[in-house]
């Protein structure tokens, strides 16, 4: 097993809510609550969950766009939580991001070449900039002529390729993808998914992949964490998680995703999860999922479940699952 590249330790992110004449802080939105996870070198890690689950906030925290309220983030053996300004620059160079909407994340008044060479120049790239731009475009499956095109002259998929090229420009170790394929048409989405998989293999990249489409996350990621209202509900290897979900929420999520196959769908007996996602401003007590959980008990309303190991590299935070010591792991 390779060394951990990124370690998120007990990280919480709270956003204060102000009210009244003196704008006193009266409450806090607990966007991320006590999350601990590790990304190994070269691994693709997926964060899934519905709106308000905190996955995007967590990604932004890793990108140091948001400061954690508590907890630490370690990158390549270094605690980057307290860093700021200049000391953060080497980190910023090694971490890149790809966002959902390639149209709004690219400057509309710059050509693809301009966008890429700007990144290179800002970070004092020492080689031949235009050669590197052509290389990056080529890596992302774009012909050299794209260097002269503006974002509005490209299709959505092409723009996302430029976004990926920009992320690759500085040869980062970690790429944070926030819903990087959600806005794309089905046929294009598949192209980008394949591109990301190829790049990962080719450059040994580590991915933190945020998504709401379970099938995509399952396809792309080695390990997946399921989040709900700021907390990690379950975390396991991709196949393990989707084949043997332990947490009732994970199970409900998987149930809710229709398979593109009328025959198997006809056989599947699914019941949609009842109720709405509670507001993160006022999360339920105890297990945050208990309001919608089909197997919730009175205990769930008061007790916050701890993450317990339920299989090899598989943890779940549910009072209904019991700890299963994993012997295979050591062998």
């Amino acid at each position, binding site marked *: 097993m390779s060394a951990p590249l990124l370690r998120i330790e007990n990280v919480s992110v709270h956003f204060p809510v102000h009210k009244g004449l003196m704008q006193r802080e009266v409450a806090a939105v607990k966007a991320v609550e006590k999350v601990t996870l590790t990304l190994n070198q070269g691994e693709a890690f997926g964060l899934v969950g519905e709106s308000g689950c905190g996955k995007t906030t967590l990604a932004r925290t890793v990108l140091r766009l948001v400061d954690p309220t508590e907890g630490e983030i370690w990158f390549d053996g270094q605690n980057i939580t307290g860093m700021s300004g200049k000391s953060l620059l080497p980190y910023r160079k090694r971490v890149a991001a790809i966002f959902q909407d390639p149209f709004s994340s690219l400057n509309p008044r710059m050509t693809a070449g301009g966008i890429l060479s700007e990144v290179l120049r800002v970070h004092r790239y020492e080689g031949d900039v235009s050669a590197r731009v052509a290389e990056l475009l080529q890596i992302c499956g774009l012909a050299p002529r794209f260097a002269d095109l503006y974002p509005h002259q490209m299709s959505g998929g*092409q723009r996302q390729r430029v976004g990926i090229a920009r992320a690759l420009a500085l040869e980062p170790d970690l790429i944070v993808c926030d819903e990087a394929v959600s806005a794309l048409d089905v*046929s294009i989405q598949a192209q980008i998914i394949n591109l990301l998989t190829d790049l990962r293999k080719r450059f040994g990249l580590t991915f933190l992949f945020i998504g709401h489409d379970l099938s995509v996350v399952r396809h792309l990621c080695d390990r997946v964490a399921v989040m709900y209202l700021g907390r990690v509900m379950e975390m396991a290897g991709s196949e393990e998680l989707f084949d043997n979900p332990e947490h009732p929420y994970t199970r409900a999520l998987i149930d809710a*995703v*229709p398979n593109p196959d009328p025959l198997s769908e006809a056989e599947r007996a699914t019941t949609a999860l009842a109720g709405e996602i509670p507001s993160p401003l006022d999360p339920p007590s105890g297990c945050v999922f208990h309001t919608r959980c089909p197997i919730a008990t009175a205990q769930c309303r008061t007790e916050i479940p701890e993450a317990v190991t339920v299989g090899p590299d598989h943890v779940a935070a549910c009072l209904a699952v019991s700890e299963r010591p994993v012997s295979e792991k050591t062998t």
Partner: protein
Amino acid sequence: MALLEVRDLTIALRADGEDTTLVQGVSYQIEPGETLALVGESGSGKSLSSLAVMGLLAKELVVTSGEIVMEGENLLDLSDEEMRRRRGRDMAMVFQEPMTSLNPVLTIGAQIIESIEENLGLSRAAARERAIELLKEVGVADAERRLKQYPHHFSGGMRQRVMIAIALAAEPKLIIADEPTTALDVTIQAQILDLMARLCREHGTALVLITHNLGIVARYAQRVNVMYSGRIVESGPAAEIYHNPRHPYSEGLLQSVPRLDQDRSVPLAPIKGSPADPFMSITGCRFHPRCDYAGPICRQTAPDFDGSVACHFPLDTQQKDAS
């Protein structure tokens, strides 16, 4: 008799006296109580053709030929006023964006009640009673209190329930749902689609489900029209298309989607290139630049739609040839 029959519908964008055809020769029909899916990527014309049925096309968009026949009457022959009376009463629509599809400055109640008043001619009080009933039916708890609230007090899922209540207000025979759950979370998506399916079944309402999500089609639709660049390229029962797609585009779509029950290590097989730009003229089959099976004829002649597929080389025949 089919509830709705669309014949050879062609829609063009008229700008500066010039027409750009966006929907070309679309024909389909839907039986009472049936659920028909329109599948396709952005720009495929699935929304446009449905808006034409509702008579809600923007001014610049014109129906240049075809018929839209509902219960024996061509809707395109009706006056604006006659068409207005049909809307809401005979057919209703549920839109994609629940966050923006309700008027932010009017209460939920006002928006449901006005539809009931207009289409059923009930008094304000009676319309209010009916609105409460409707909200309960679509699963909005505490309906009386919620009537007085504004859209921003509602979550996305709840708003879509309200939209469904509005659509159901006058018990229309046909509901067109345009990507009704694209903006919703997975668990909420399941709730909404289950709800729609149940209500349509209970009320015997025909449903046109517009979506790009093949999973949803598989779970909820009986028949499917696959659209590409303004044309129907394949049409048929859902199970048939999923298991024996005849058009290369249908096949490509199915192979592009990652599935939960698939081997992760096998790469996806995406369709090459990008969806056709509706403003770009392509001679022959509009799919041919992306098609792996295309022959010389595909570049010259557009294939006709035979009621099942529009392709010079449908896949089942090819396979037969190959075998």
